[in-house]
Every structure is written in structure tokens, then in C-alpha cells.
């Protein structure tokens, strides 16, 4: 796949090309609590302050749609429409000017106009032309987020941790989203065949070969991400605890044993488990069953058994390490929802300093503007309320 080109593709990127992604313009229409707003900013961190329910998280969520997947709230895109009592939901759209190492891009995403009988689709436009799909956005933009809903990441099921790692892996390898989508498609096809009892062995062989090919790519990308995170973690100086992370799972073990023949081994293992998968009605083996093990390095304890505060600090460590590890290309935009409020003053300062050191455009929300005073002129501050966003 050929990546999108910046608007000035003929001109090579100057030596001073930004080493961090940033939004310089954001406009929302019919987006949740917003009828229509436009926000202009520079590449510095952004503080959004306002009361509970003012619409701060909605802004972060809108930015998160500039990446593949289900956004920061993890909901289907059709649910992001503005709801007005008594009226049909209008089509939402998010548009932004994005700066990155390859120049400036105009990107937009939203829901297709929904006339009767049409299934709504998520549209993506880059430089005013339709893009093949949301995964095209990974070529021009990278974003990571931390939300209060992720506070239970280490305690709840593995799927949240996989998604967390996949989001980071996408930052290193833009093709990761496509590999995951292709793997999922082949997995669904195979499961349908098994469920229907039509199990033509040759057809299953073909689908398992595809699952193995894309699955091996997924594992390779994830292991690569874990490795990059670990080496960025060693450079940890920001006052947050270092974490030791590892990718665990049967397919991952198989891959690690011999990466060169992993495709064949995964396909053979899938072929052997046809009967079991058919009986279970789901696929029991594969990278979709992987887990991310996280340990508190200094305490040598599983993250799940650390205190709530330590878990939060570990999460921030991981996000900062991911951002640092991506800085070779460009530091991703960070969406930190209600993060400052959960930290004591020392750690809050450490977080602000880490963001400054990274040069990241971090979008931070909070109910209290005074909490961000130490950021001073290092950040641009906005007040959120009544469906508007006003510079502070």
C-alpha cells in the first residue's frame, strides 16, 4: 500500500521537521455535546478545564477518531452523533490540521450521510480526497490515550491489555491495524465454515494459511512494540515506576521458538484444533488470545496486585515509554483524560516535566485550572462549557 503524501510532497521535509505530531486546528460538527466548534492551537500541550459534563472528554474522543478503531470510549462510530431530543441524529464530523514529520495534512473523519436503507459508514478524508479507510490515518498521525476507564486495565480481562498494546504497536508499525483486520476476517471466515459444518479441508487450509500469515505479522509487531517499550523504559527518569512487560500466549510461545517457521507452525496448530474450535464455537488458539504481562520492576510485583495509585503510575509510565519509543519518527499526540487529578503534586510535576521533555502535544483535561498552573506558558489553556471552548 502506498501511503498518503503531504500537501507539499514535492518539497523534501526540512531538517527542522517536527519530531512530534500535533493538531493545529480541530473542528467538530454535530459531535455529541457540540453543534459546531473550531479550535486553533499551536504544537504545545493543551489544557481543557471545565466542570463535570462540560464536554472535555468529548473533545479528546473526537481527536481519537483520527486513528483506526473505536475511539477513546471504545464505542461504535454511529454513537458519536449529537443527540437532540425529538430530532433524528445528524451526521457527525471531525476535521483537523495535523502536523508531523512528513508535513501538514488536512484530515477528516465522520459518518456518511444516512439516507434510508443505507448502512452508515465511517468516512475518512486526507487532504480533501477520500482515503481507503481509517487505517490510512496511521500513515500521517499517531495518538495514544489514557482515560479513567483504563484504571482497571491490569485487573480486568486480557482484551483491554491487547488493545492497549495494539494501539502502541500501530504507532511503530502502521501496517499493524491492517494485519489485525485481515487476521480477524480470516478467523471469522474459518469459524463460520466450522460452525456450518461445511469444513472443506482445503478451504480451511487456505484460511488458516492467511490467519497464520497475518497472525505472525501481528505477533511480530507486538513483540517489536514490547521490545521498544522495554528499552524506552530503561531510560525512565520521570518519577514514575518502571514496568517490566512481556507478551504471553500459546501462539506467541510458538512464534518465539522459531520465528522463521512460525507461519507454518501456527497454521499446523490451527489445523489440529479444528474439532475443538468447532465444539467450542470459538477460536481457541491464536494471537487474539494473547495477554500483556505487566510487573512493577522495583517491587517485583504483578501490576494487578499493586495499589490503585501505583497502577495508575505504571500506566503513565507505559504511555510515556511508548511516546518516547516513537520519538525516533515523531512523538504521538497524548490524550490524558483526568490524569492530573489522580496524581499527588510530586508526580503531577513529574508528568508535566516528562511531557515537556518529550515535546509532546498532550491534551489534558481537569475540573480545576489551578492544577495546571505549573505548566505556565508551556501549555495553552482553554475553558470548556456550554458547548463552547474559549481560550483562558
Amino acid at each position, binding site marked *: 500500500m502506498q501511503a498518503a503524501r503531504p500537501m507539499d510532497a514535492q518539497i523534501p521535509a526540512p531538517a527542522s521537521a517536527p519530531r512530534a505530531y500535533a493538531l493545529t486546528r480541530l473542528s467538530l460538527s454535530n459531535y455529541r455535546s457540540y453543534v459546531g466548534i473550531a479550535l486553533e492551537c499551536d504544537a504545545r500541550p493543551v489544557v481543557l478545564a471545565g466542570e463535570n459534563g462540560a464536554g472535555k472528554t468529548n473533545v479528546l474522543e473526537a481527536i481519537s477518531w483520527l486513528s483506526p478503531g473505536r475511539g477513546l470510549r471504545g464505542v461504535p462510530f454511529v454513537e458519536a452523533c449529537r443527540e437532540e431530543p425529538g430530532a433524528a441524529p445528524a451526521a457527525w464530523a471531525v476535521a483537523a490540521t495535523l502536523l508531523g514529520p512528513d508535513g501538514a495534512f488536512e484530515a477528516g473523519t465522520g459518518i456518511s450521510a444516512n439516507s434510508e436503507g443505507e448502512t452508515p459508514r465511517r468516512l475518512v478524508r486526507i487532504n480533501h480526497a477520500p482515503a481507503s479507510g481509517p487505517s490510512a490515518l496511521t500513515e500521517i498521525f499517531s495518538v495514544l490515550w489514557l482515560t479513567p476507564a483504563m484504571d482497571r486495565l491490569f485487573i480486568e480481562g486480557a482484551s483491554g491489555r491487547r488493545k492497549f498494546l495494539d494501539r502502541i504497536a500501530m504507532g511503530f508499525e502502521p501496517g499493524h491495524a491492517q494485519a489485525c483486520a485481515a487476521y480477524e476476517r480470516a478467523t471469522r*471466515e474459518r469459524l463460520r465454515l466450522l460452525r456450518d459444518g461445511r469444513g472443506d479441508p482445503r478451504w480451511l487450509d*487456505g484460511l488458516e494459511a492467511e490467519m497464520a500469515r497475518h497472525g505472525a505479522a501481528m505477533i511480530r509487531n507486538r513483540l517489536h512494540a514490547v521490545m521498544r517499550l522495554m528499552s524506552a523504559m530503561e531510560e525512565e527518569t520521570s518519577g514514575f515506576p518502571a514496568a517490566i512487560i512481556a507478551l504471553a500466549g500459546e501462539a506467541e510461545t510458538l512464534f518465539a521458538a522459531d520465528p522463521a517457521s512460525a507461519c507454518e507452525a501456527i497454521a499446523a496448530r490451527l489445523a489440529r484444533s479444528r474439532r475443538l474450535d468447532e465444539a467450542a464455537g470459538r477460536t481457541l488458539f491464536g494471537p487474539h488470545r494473547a495477554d500483556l504481562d505487566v510487573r512493577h520492576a522495583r517491587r517485583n510485583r504483578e501490576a494487578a496486585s499493586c495499589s490503585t495509585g501505583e497502577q495508575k503510575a505504571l500506566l503513565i509510565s507505559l504511555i510515556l515509554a511508548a511516546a518516547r519509543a516513537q520519538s525516533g519518527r515523531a512523538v504521538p499526540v497524548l490524550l490524558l483524560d483526568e490524569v492530573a487529578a489522580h496524581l499527588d503534586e510530586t508526580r503531577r510535576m513529574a508528568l508535566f516535566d516528562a511531557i515537556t521533555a518529550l515535546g509532546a502535544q498532550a491534551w489534558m483535561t481537569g475540573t480545576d485550572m489551578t492544577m495546571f498552573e505549573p505548566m505556565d506558558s508551556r501549555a495553552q489553556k482553554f475553558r470548556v462549557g456550554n458547548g463552547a471552548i474559549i481560550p483562558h
Partner: protein
Amino acid sequence: MTANSAGPEIERLISLLARLPGLGPRSARRVALVLMKRKEALLDPLVSAMQDVGRVIRTCSVCGHVDTSDPCTICTDARRDPATICVVEDIGDVWALERAGVFRGRYHVLGGLLSALDGRGPETLGLPRLIARLGDGKVTEIILALAATVDGQATAFYISGELAALGVKVTRLGQGLPFGGELGWLDDGTLTAAFRARQSVG
């Protein structure tokens, strides 16, 4: 416009147009409107062109291509190489390859790819028809020109398996560096495929 603001004939036209690729209910109304407004210039010629095509189109019983004769123009063209058969998903792919002018053999049109989710099984690929064409021993190579998607590759895998025992050479299109492609812009998957498919120069 609500459902009963036009006569039933017009509504029927709109609902048929809406089933065409690229058109939805809204754009179908726009098309219908243009057709009605420009009856002599567009609607009448379109009606007669569609009737003509509808009268003469045949699906080729040899290759599955759609043409005005059976066997089709390509299958009966004596100048084409009878030793190679190119397997494609759809008629549009035949047109694309013919436009490129790169292939001078004959085709086998599958009419779709294997897809469990869409209920398309191996029986829809017309493989017995393809295998029958290998009977006289004239065909020496089958080229699988299928999409590099999950369904395309699974179908290619299936067909190559079916043909394996028949002693005919089976090839597939190369995957890798696109024209005008710079290495730094390629994703890992494409780059790996291009690297594996490298060729000696000179």
C-alpha cells in the same frame, strides 16, 4: 420526497437504480430525475442500449466471461495462446488485463471468491469447468491473478491445491513494490513480499 410523491413506475425505476453499485436511494433519485428530464437525449437511447445488450449477452460456457457470443470472443480467437489460462475473480479483471495488453492467453472467470461470510463455497468457482479444459494436455500454465486480500489469497490457496495433482504449472502474480513506490513509504508486509519476490538483474 416521500414514497408516494411519484408514480409507481418511477418509484420502481428508482428502487432498481438504487441497487446499482455506487448508487444509494438518494443518488438513484437524482439519476432518475436526470433521465426523465432528458428523455430523448438519455432515457430513450439508454432503454434501447440496455435492451440490445440484454438480448445478446451470453455467459461463455468455456471460461465464464460475459460476451455477445458463446464461446466468447477471447475463447474463439485463434491468435491467442491456448497453453496459458489466467484465473481471475470477475469480468472487470478480464477487462483490466486486456486493457494492459499484457496477457495473450485465455481466461477462467470465477465470478467471485471463496467467502464463508457471504456464503460462497468452492462449488461456485466452476473448477470442474477449468479442470475439463486441462484434459487435452495443451494447457501448460495456470496463472492465478487474484486479489491480495484474505479471500483472494485463501481462494488462490484452494485452487492451487485442487490443481496440484494434475501436473500443470501453477503461478500467481508477483506482490511487492508498486510503480512509483519509494521504499520508505511502504508498509512492512509489502516490503517483505517485494523482498521475497526479488529477481536477478541483467
